[in-house]
């Protein structure tokens, strides 16, 4: 603890991670463009950039965990700031997905003559929304219940039960990803099959990517809960993971209703 500090704000130490993350993002972008246009060295720069980002993520979050769990910098007011920050991040994620829904509705509400003037386009065999997609809806809703169970278990001080609840959440998340992978593999259309395939795989693919990120986030929370990092009064990381998980869940509900169900009839 710091004894000379007379305020509850966290004045962070200078850190190299913002600039290393930015350089990693730059290398990833330039490398990605070079790779996709078959320039020499594109794949190397892309891989280097991704490695740089992954390394930055690891060490930056390691520092945050040290500052909060070991050094006690995350006071009530700091926690409030972190919550605001995470809510703003989720708002930006909502806008990200808004764009893909816009592309989908733009293409499906008034289908062009080039795809036969109908939606789904002529020749596209769609997936039955009441088979795997509906099952996946139930799986995500159940994992949402499990994360709420974990939340109340943490608040009630039931540490072991909270670990079990997080394990259940992660297990359901992995089953969801497994079924999505199976569905992708068996799908009668691909991303190169008309605007239907493009919008379908862009929207559901980015959702799947977010599910994987959310799963990793929950796994980290489970490990931290097991190690005793999370307490009744101090579990911002878990709360952020729970909010993120509910966000991913809500996006799926919109995907299910509009793309799988409405867009499949």
């Amino acid at each position, binding site marked *: 603890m710091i004894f000379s500090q007379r305020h509850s704000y966290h004045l962070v130490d200078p850190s190299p991670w913002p600039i290393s993350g930015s350089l990693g993002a730059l290398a990833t972008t330039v490398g990605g463009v070079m790779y996709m246009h*078959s320039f020499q060295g594109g794949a190397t720069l892309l891989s280097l950039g991704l490695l740089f980002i992954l390394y930055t993520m690891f060490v930056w979050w390691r520092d945050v965990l040290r500052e909060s769990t070991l050094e006690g910098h995350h006071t009530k007011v700091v926690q*409030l700031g972190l919550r605001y920050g995470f809510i703003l991040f989720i708002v930006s994620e909502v806008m990200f997905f808004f764009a893909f829904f816009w592309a989908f509705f733009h293409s499906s509400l008034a289908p062009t003559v080039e795809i036969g003037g109908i939606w789904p386009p002529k020749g596209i*065999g769609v997936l039955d929304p009441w088979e795997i997609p509906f*099952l996946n809806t139930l799986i995500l809703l159940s994992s949402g219940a499990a994360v709420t169970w974990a939340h109340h*278990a943490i*608040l009630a001080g039931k540490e072991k039960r909270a670990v079990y609840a997080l394990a259940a959440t992660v297990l359901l998340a992995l089953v969801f990803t497994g079924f999505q992978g199976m569905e992708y593999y068996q799908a009668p259309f691909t991303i190169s099959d008309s605007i239907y395939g493009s919008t379908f795989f862009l929207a559901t693919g980015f959702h799947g990517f977010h599910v994987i990120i959310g799963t990793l986030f929950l796994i980290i929370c489970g490990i931290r809960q097991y190690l005793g990092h999370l307490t009744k009064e101090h579990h911002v990381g878990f709360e952020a993971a729970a*909010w993120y998980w509910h966000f991913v869940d809500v996006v799926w509900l919109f995907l299910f209703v509009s793309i799988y169900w409405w867009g499949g009839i």
Partner: protein
Amino acid sequence: MAMSMMRSALLRNSLRSASKPSAPTRRGFSSSANHDDAYEAAKWEKITYLGAASCTILAIYNLSRGHPHSETPPEYPYLHIRNKEFPWDLDVDLEIF
């Protein structure tokens, strides 16, 4: 649901920070917060088991039915679009894209 949870959490925190600094940090609506959370935890545990059980039943039902094999559609110009080479030269099945 997520939005309302965020809102309530924010409200709770702003209320908490607005109150006197000497006030103990306790959930204001209950004198025995521990008991409440234990009850809620048990309730959501049951809901999780119920959800997982129905998922298992539905999964078994779905997987046992198999999936229909659709016919290959005519070669419409907007299907199976190939405008340029893929950036990699690996020996993989490109028909999944």
